[in-house]
């Protein structure tokens, strides 16, 4: 049971960290709970499908279908996070000024919310399919039902708790800096996912490594440790990365930060821009 709980915990934690950052980033947005729950549900459904189709996926692309699928899922999530942070950069001012009564912004934001739903779904799908195969493997090994169920419950609960802890921690950030902070976290998350995608493409021999093991900092913080895993998920830490991973990381981070900076909405002129926000709270007679 401890073995089951540990593996389930590790996989759930990786997805839970992403979900909690997404939850924090969509703070104050209408119906976001529905979207996040929908993302988790779709992700679980997809995880079962992927696990069932694992044999077919393994055959694809001369035996590297699994790597390509992982890389594809990761890169899709990167694109969606990128789209969201750029959108947020354009609208964060209104969101911060009129929390709770964002009217138009929320309407426009629901398209971005759909993207984040997909990010949650993809994260759950990727980790979930591994859990499904692991549980299947354990069941084949003749582990008791009670032991298996107990391990899964313990793993899911502790992983979710860790994600909730991060969420609560993020909510303590002052409102003034809140969306800037969550955006930075999303960018680092996306950069880390891009770096992992590069690793899978190197593993599939689809990309050159441009230097395997550029350095080795596993004496300080190894990939296998809990802290290493957490940092790897949050900011893309890798104890001995390949050169191309750094390239993917840097290109993603620079592209998203530049996108946020250059596509930011121009500062609102005082007076004229205040009207729509005010009218959202107290409707004024029109003629």
């Amino acid at each position, binding site marked *: 049971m401890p*073995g089951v709980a540990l*593996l389930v915990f590790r996989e759930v934690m990786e997805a839970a960290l992403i979900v909690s950052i997404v939850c924090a980033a969509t703070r104050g947005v209408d119906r976001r709970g529905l979207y996040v729950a929908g993302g988790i549900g779709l992700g679980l459904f997809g995880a079962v499908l992927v696990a069932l189709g*694992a*044999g077919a996926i*393994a055959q694809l692309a*001369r*035996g*590297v279908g*699994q*790597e390509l699928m992982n890389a594809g899922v990761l890169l899709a999530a990167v694109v969606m996070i990128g789209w969201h942070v750029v959108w947020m950069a354009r609208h964060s001012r209104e969101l911060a000024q009129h929390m709770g009564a964002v009217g138009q912004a929320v309407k426009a934001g629901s398209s971005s919310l759909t993207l984040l739903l997909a990010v949650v779904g993809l994260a759950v799908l990727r980790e979930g399919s*591994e859990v499904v*195969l*692991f549980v*299947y*493997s*354990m069941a*084949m*090994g003749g582990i008791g039902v009670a032991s298996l169920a107990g391990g899964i419950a313990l793993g899911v609960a502790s992983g979710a708790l860790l994600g909730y802890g991060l969420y609560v921690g993020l909510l303590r950030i002052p409102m003034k800096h809140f969306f800037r902070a969550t955006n930075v976290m999303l960018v680092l998350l996306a950069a880390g996912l891009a770096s992992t995608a590069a*690793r899978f493409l*190197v*593993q*599939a*021999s*689809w990309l050159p*490594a441009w230097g*395997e*093991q550029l350095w080795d900092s*596993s004496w300080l913080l*190894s*990939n*296998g440790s809990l802290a290493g895993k957490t940092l790897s998920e949050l900011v893309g830490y*890798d*104890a*001995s*990365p*390949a050169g191309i991973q750094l390239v993917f990381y840097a290109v993603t981070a620079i592209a998203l930060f530049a996108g946020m900076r250059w596509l930011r909405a121009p500062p609102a002129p005082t007076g004229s821009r205040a009207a729509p926000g005010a009218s959202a709270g107290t409707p004024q007679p029109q003629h």
Partner: protein
Amino acid sequence: MVVQLAAVVTRVPQRPGPVRQVSFGPVWCLCFAERALRPRCFASPSTKVEAAAEIATLNKNYYHPATFFTWNDAVTRLVVTAALLLASLAAQAADVPEFRLVIQNHTFQPSELKVPSGAKVKLLVENRDAAPEEFESTELGREKIVLPNSTASVYVGPLKPGSYRFFGDFHQDTAQGRLIAE
């Protein structure tokens, strides 16, 4: 052959210069002669008036992306690039030495595998158990599901000389091994 293909891929698309209407006759003849060969991206002129209209449109749209980007061109380029990439991958894959690992009763055989350092190698991990396994190494940064009674390939390296731990993620208490690069 490869050099020619590479030239096709790397060729910078030339933007056509402005069409001048100095010698109207030859231009019209050219347009007419090209009718059969030309891709259908522009309407083929059949009269002098139509040719003149086409030239006027070309000049007007001089800075429009369509004058130096066509889907035909882009697709050709993409196909040739993909073919080249696949060819180079195939050549690369053929040169990589292969090493075999067997998973049986949730243990690795051999539990110590020697591979050359400084070169890319391909590990063939065969799972003879009835349960799925995940070949994983945090030190190598590799993870791959190996389904029951099947073989999965994992590319590793070029590695620095040393010892790298790997394990079966689903049965960590028994499935342990080391890759020795020397």
